[in-house]
Structures are given as structure tokens and as C-alpha cells.
């Protein structure tokens, strides 16, 4: 069983998502389940509900999953992917209101210490501009 909250990174750009995930891995280490997705199925900029759902599945932890998003559609599609989850899982996924790169590193650092999903989200959201 994965003991730490998982992190999912959702950007319109696969390069941004992959780069953010690289920063999390290099700064925080391997103790946090991590997945990213970005780009539309046609290869352009965008996000896809299916890809987000797959990323949530990949980073799944019984302690829950925190999603970091960039702009507009990344958030609405993430919310849609969460709604599609079966009851029992749906309640254990949150979309954080935080900048994607900084929020992902902060959330993963918090998660790596074994913190709860609520603590992980609060730490990521401390990064919001005042």
C-alpha cells in the first residue's frame, strides 16, 4: 500500500507537466506517488479528462491524491475526472488552488512526510499570492 498522498500534475503543455514532475522528483525524491499529463490527444496544447483519470489512477494512494493544475481547462477537466471516479475514491482527490510548479513541490514535500491530504492541500495553497 502506498503510504503517502499522491501528486498529479496537469498542464496544457506536456513539457510543463513533465518538467514540473522532474522538479518534484529531483527535489523531493521518490517517496511520493507522482504522475503528470498534458496536451490534447492530437498533440496540441490542451488537457484531456481521460489522461487526467489515468494519471490519478497511476498516482493513486489510499491517503488520497492532490492535483496541481495550470489554467482554466486543466482545472475544469480535472474536476470532471474526479467526478467520474467511483464513490469512495472521489472524496479522496482534491484540486489545489495553487501555482502549478511551486504548488507541486510544496505539496510533494508535505506529502513525503506522511501528512494527510488536507495538510498537503493547505501547504500547496499557502503558495497563493497574498
Amino acid at each position: 500500500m502506498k503510504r503517502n498522498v499522491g501528486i498529479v500534475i496537469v498542464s496544457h503543455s506536456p513539457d510543463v507537466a513533465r518538467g514540473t514532475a522532474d522538479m518534484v522528483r529531483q527535489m523531493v525524491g521518490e517517496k511520493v506517488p507522482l504522475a503528470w499529463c498534458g496536451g490534447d490527444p492530437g498533440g496540441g496544447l490542451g488537457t484531456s479528462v481521460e489522461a487526467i483519470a489515468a494519471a490519478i489512477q497511476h498516482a493513486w494512494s489510499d491517503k488520497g491524491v492532490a492535483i496541481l493544475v495550470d489554467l482554466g481547462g486543466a482545472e475544469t477537466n480535472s474536476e470532471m475526472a474526479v467526478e467520474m471516479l467511483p464513490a469512495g475514491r472521489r472524496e479522496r482527490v482534491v484540486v489545489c488552488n495553487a501555482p502549478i510548479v511551486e504548488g507541486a513541490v510544496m505539496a510533494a514535500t508535505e506529502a513525503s512526510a506522511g501528512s494527510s491530504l488536507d495538510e498537503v492541500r493547505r501547504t500547496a495553497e499557502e503558495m497563493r499570492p497574498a
Partner: protein
Amino acid sequence: MSAEIVTSERAAGSVLLDHAVGLHARPSVKLTQLAKTFQARIELALSEAGPWIDAKSIVKVMATKAPKDTILHFRAEGVDASLAVAALIGLVKRDFEDGR
């Protein structure tokens, strides 16, 4: 009735931060991760006069932006306070185990 003896202790210490880039992102993450392995309440300051911040808060630790050659002050309170302060000072002395 059995009595459980809980010994709470206080500890404090300081260390020169001579990591090349100061307390930037990666060192901040390592410091916070280590602090969170202890039960004690642990605080960090760049001056003995404070302000003291929660060493277990990655956001607050990173926001100190402590540059190279700053003296980091630690204080802790709790059952493992001495161990915590020693471990954190050790991490800074070992240059955050940054192999780069």
C-alpha cells in the same frame, strides 16, 4: 494506576550556513523533511532575536531565503528536542548531502 512519565525537553543550537546557494529550494525541502521526522516543535530563525518560524513548514522555510554565510538558529521543544536540533545542525554541516 500507572503513571506515564513524559519528559519534554528544550534544545537550541546554531550553525553557519555555508551551502553555496544558501537555503534555496532543494536545501529547504531536505531541512523540512528531516524536521518532520521528529515529534518536537522545531523553530528556525536567522537571528536569535527572531522572528522564529516553523521548521516543519516548507513554505515558511523556503521564504526565509537565507543566503550563504547566514547563521541558522534552531530551537526545539518536545521529547526528542535535542536529537532534532543535533540532526538539523548535522544536515546543514554536511551541506544538505548535496552531491552536486
